[in-house]
């Protein structure tokens, strides 16, 4: 079992083909007390990391990536039932209503549109029960 409430032991995986997003997420999650962070540059690599280094409490995944896109990644993870307790947050520039519905249908737990602010990430994590709500 992974302890989901104390951020110190939280493990996160950031999946994005842009290094800048890895860096930004490290900083944003770090400020929330989450320091155990792995990253991957596409869905296929992320699946490998997930199997080798998992389980993770949280996966943040971009939509558009080479090799395996975020939506296919979410489907692949959800098809493997042993990651059911891992929360998946899609983080993407894709902002169409149908896309959000598709991501949730595929098994994403929530959806964050780029560009985002640190507060938005914090609020999403609070909704997912991964960090305490402010206030």
């Amino acid at each position, binding site marked *: 079992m992974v302890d989901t409430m104390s951020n110190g032991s939280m493990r996160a995986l950031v999946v994005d083909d842009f290094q800048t997003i890895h860096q930004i997420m490290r900083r944003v999650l770090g400020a929330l007390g989450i320091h155990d962070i792995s990253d991957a540059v596409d869905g296929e690599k992320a699946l490998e990391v997930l199997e080798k280094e998992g389980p993770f409490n949280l996966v943040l995944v971009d939509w558009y990536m080479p090799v395996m896109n975020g939506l296919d990644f979410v489907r692949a993870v959800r098809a493997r039932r042993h990651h059911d307790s891992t929360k998946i947050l899609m983080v993407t520039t894709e*902002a*169409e*209503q149908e896309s*959000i*519905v598709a*991501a*949730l249908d595929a098994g*994403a737990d*929530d*959806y*964050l*549109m780029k560009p*985002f602010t640190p*507060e*938005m990430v914090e*609020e999403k994590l*609070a*909704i997912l029960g991964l960090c305490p*709500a*402010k*206030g």
Partner: protein
Amino acid sequence: MKPENTNYLRELVRSATGIVLEVEKEYLLEARLSPVAHREGLGDVESLVEMLRMNPDGVLRDMVLDAMTTNETSFFRDLHPFDALRQTILPQLMERRAETRTLNIWSAVCSSGQEPYSLLMMLSENFPELSSWNLNFLASDVSTSMIERARAGRYSQFEVSRGLPASFLVKYLSKVGQSWEMDAGLRKAVKFQVLNLVQPWPALPTMDIIMMRNVLIYFDNATKEKILRKACGCLRGDGYLFLGSSEVLMGLDVALQRTSIDGSWCYQPESRTPAVP
């Protein structure tokens, strides 16, 4: 700025909204009113004040007051009050009101509407049986432009990214161009009204739930007391009042008792007769 102009603006803001601008916050006048002066072709804040003096009740006054009030809000702000309402308070109130099937809810500082809509989405999601109840939902704010925005229920991508679960976003809002529009049914379920908490209140139904979050911080203690006493007066004996998470009643003489429910502070009228064990 000339001191008499600074004083004029402070007094205008205080008398109209109750908001007391501390001396160290005076820079806010310049910072927030310069854009208004520019937009209205008045050059600087000094000339804006000259215009105000000539026409103190016009649209310029509303623009100034809007610029000087902080409208910052978000969906499901602080989360805990919504947990308390969902897990404990609403099941309890619905059991107690089963006979009349009536609930009166007031979001007393609704800003651009995120707070009342969050509540409504939560109600619709968790208590579908309320659709056959008499739900009187009032949402008010001192700012006309905020009430108009809340009534329109249109939010930018930035605003819907603050605190709103994506499942609610796609279920209760629809994308229209670059913005997101609240479901028409939810918009119709709320009565939006301009209401100034520091002026006489209109007749209000006795409330079961009052949300008055993140506004008292701007008032002095005497004003806080006056408002809270009035709120208490229109709250049912077993009703609940929510304040902002950083707002406390310390040092205020009001007949409210604080309880902690599901991680949130809330307030109930003090019972006049002590409970018999």
